[in-house]
């Protein structure tokens, strides 16, 4: 009896202290990939989150920010475990991050069932935008289909008649292929979905030979992270750059470009890709972000970093709008939905499914004034574009 009483008291005491601790800080869990070759992406996101915290003096309103980084190891099961830990053990207020769609899909339920907020800083699987949309899920990136849709649209504009598609065989890879197929009006001459994950296929010899034999006019690929560099190298070694121009999404970015430059793969200069953001965007928030990132880390940030930076700023805007009252979930949700902050891509709004309604741009690979390879916006392909899965969301 006494033991039981003591235990209850202890638990109560623990609850009180943790309750008090909660009052003067905001806890953010951030899940990304910090090991495996995909760690280069995670590193860029981590750098950007740290820069964001530096910019806001580690404060949101009166609250101190406590950041807990977790590594998903590029695996859905590990991502879910780490998410469970953040939700149950650390009792965070927000869970953000997630590079990979399959990791996000595996982890989302843990966060949403606990009535906490989930902010995707990259992954935008069609499921989360459509049937599985949730009042507490927000994205600071895009829905997977949108960027390739913009690319399909651009291909129509320049009169490409036939296309070969290559993409990894996982949730986002299928969304990307699907995205370009919905808008591209020409003929799809062939499609390869290649093995993905921690032991992803990186030698594309067989697929490139097929692509070449298909006689397609152009090739569209989605190979994020390390695979992108490997693909472009082999594309050039196979001598395809003169026969099949390369159009990409999420493949040629500031993660792959420095290495492509070091490898002297000039074939990528001038290649086109679509994206919602670019380092050269002309707004105050972006200039500060890109400028300080360059100063601090000596290289350009990638879109992964830009979206992670935005995720922190979005959370800050919501925390401040509610006066730091993290208990008032409805007010927080309303503030998040308003997206009332200066995004590095410029202002955007949220659709019914909490995916951004935003512009998509055509970017070209160029050398900057110091000779570093980067991307530059050429034109706007979509203005205020909403993803096609929003109609499946019952919100």
């Amino acid at each position, binding site marked *: 009896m006494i033991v039981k009483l003591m235990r209850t008291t202890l638990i109560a005491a623990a609850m009180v202290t943790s309750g008090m601790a909660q009052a003067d800080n905001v806890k953010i869990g951030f899940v990304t990939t910090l090991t495996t070759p995909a760690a280069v992406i995670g590193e860029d996101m981590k750098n950007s989150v740290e820069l964001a915290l530096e910019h806001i003096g580690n404060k949101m309103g009166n609250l101190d920010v406590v950041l807990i980084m977790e590594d998903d190891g590029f695996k859905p099961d590990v991502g879910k475990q780490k998410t469970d830990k953040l939700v149950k053990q650390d009792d965070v207020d927000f869970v953000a991050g997630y590079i990979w769609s399959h990791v996000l899909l595996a982890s989302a339920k843990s966060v949403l069932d606990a009535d906490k907020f989930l902010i995707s800083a990259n992954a935008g699987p069609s499921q989360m935008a459509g049937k599985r949309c949730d009042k507490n899920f927000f994205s600071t990136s895009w829905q997977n289909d949108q960027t390739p849709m913009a690319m399909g649209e651009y291909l129509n504009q320049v009169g490409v008649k036939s296309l070969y598609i290559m993409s990894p065989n996982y949730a986002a890879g299928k969304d990307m292929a699907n995205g370009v197929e919905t808008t591209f009006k020409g003929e799809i001459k062939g499609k390869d979905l290649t093995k993905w994950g*921690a032991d992803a296929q990186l030698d594309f*010899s067989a697929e490139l030979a097929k692509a*070449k034999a298909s006689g397609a006019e152009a090739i569209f690929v989605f190979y994020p992270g*390390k695979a992108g560099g490997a693909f472009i*190298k082999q594309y050039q*070694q196979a*001598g395809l750059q003169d026969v099949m121009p390369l159009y990409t999404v999420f493949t040629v970015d500031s993660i792959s470009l420095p290495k492509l430059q070091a490898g*002297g793969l000039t074939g990528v200069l001038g290649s086109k890709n679509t994206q919602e953001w670019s380092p050269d965007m002309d707004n105050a928030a972006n200039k500060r972000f890109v400028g300080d990132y360059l100063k601090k880390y000596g290289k350009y940030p990638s879109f992964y970093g830009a979206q992670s930076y935005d995720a922190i700023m979005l959370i800050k805007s919501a925390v401040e709008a509610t006066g730091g009252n993290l208990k008032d979930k409805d007010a927080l949700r309303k503030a998040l939905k308003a997206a009332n902050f200066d995004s590095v891509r410029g202002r955007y709004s949220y659709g019914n499914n909490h995916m951004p309604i935003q512009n998509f741009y055509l970017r070209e690979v160029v050398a900057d004034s110091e000779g570093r390879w980067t991307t530059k916006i050429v034109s706007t392909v979509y203005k205020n574009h909403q993803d096609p899965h929003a109609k499946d969301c019952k919100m």
Partner: protein
Amino acid sequence: MDWNLLISQLMNGLQLGLLLFLLASGLTLIFGIMDFINLSHGSFYMIGAYFCGSIVAYTGSFALGILVGLVGVFIVGALVEWFIARKLYREDHLDQVLVTFGLILIFDTLVHMLWGASGMAIPLPAVLNGQLTLGELVLPTYRLLIIIAGFAVAAILYILVSKTRLGMLIRAGASNRTMVEALGININRLFLFVFALGAAMAGLAGMLIAPITEASIGMGNDIIIVAFVVVIVGGIGSVKGAFYAAMILGLIDTLSRSYLDVLLGLAMPTEYSETAAPAISAMLIYILMAAVLAFRPQGLFPPAGAK
């Protein structure tokens, strides 16, 4: 039928097979002769790539990178044998697996500390970045180089194993280790050499693939599983078996990646076949291994006298 495509795909399969052979030949010797399961064999593959990449970055010469890389990995292999593996030969397989798994983690972390997480691109000389045109057929020069280098190493290894006294000892060791020891051969020195040679060949495979895929942390851990499949299919301890098995697996993998989606497309709607094909082609080599284990558990070409 597009014959040019088929020929390029056969060449691609050959290239993959030869890389697998470079990895598996060392693995099968170490496994067969010393009865030592070395999970960290893939780490030599990774270290080779990083050594070569660093030298190329420093001197700009790819040939020098390969040369220095080979020596470097040979030394690392010898050190691992001397300080770690040697103490484990008489231990249980489970102990060997645990220790070498630990070695993987140590090597991965060391590489992370020394070279960072971002991986390393290895630039090729312009000659190797081009293509060779034979009539209608266009082949990347560098992939041809891998094939030539792979065959050359296979030939050297064949002569070493089947025509020299050292090779005789290696073969004898694979068949009956105790007898070799009883005949007064310095088995420690033989083991040290075989281990380091195996490491150097794995390192060479890593150096050859890195200009295509980049050197990265854990790159060896993905391919080592396939190398073990090669060892099992070929017959443990048999270099000849490793060669044929590597070729067979390389061709199966490449050809299924090239043609399986079309074949499956005949039997099911495209949307299913294009998703199922990569999954099935990733499984095929394991299905082959299961079949070999079921019907010919000693492997396709077991070493003479092996039980």
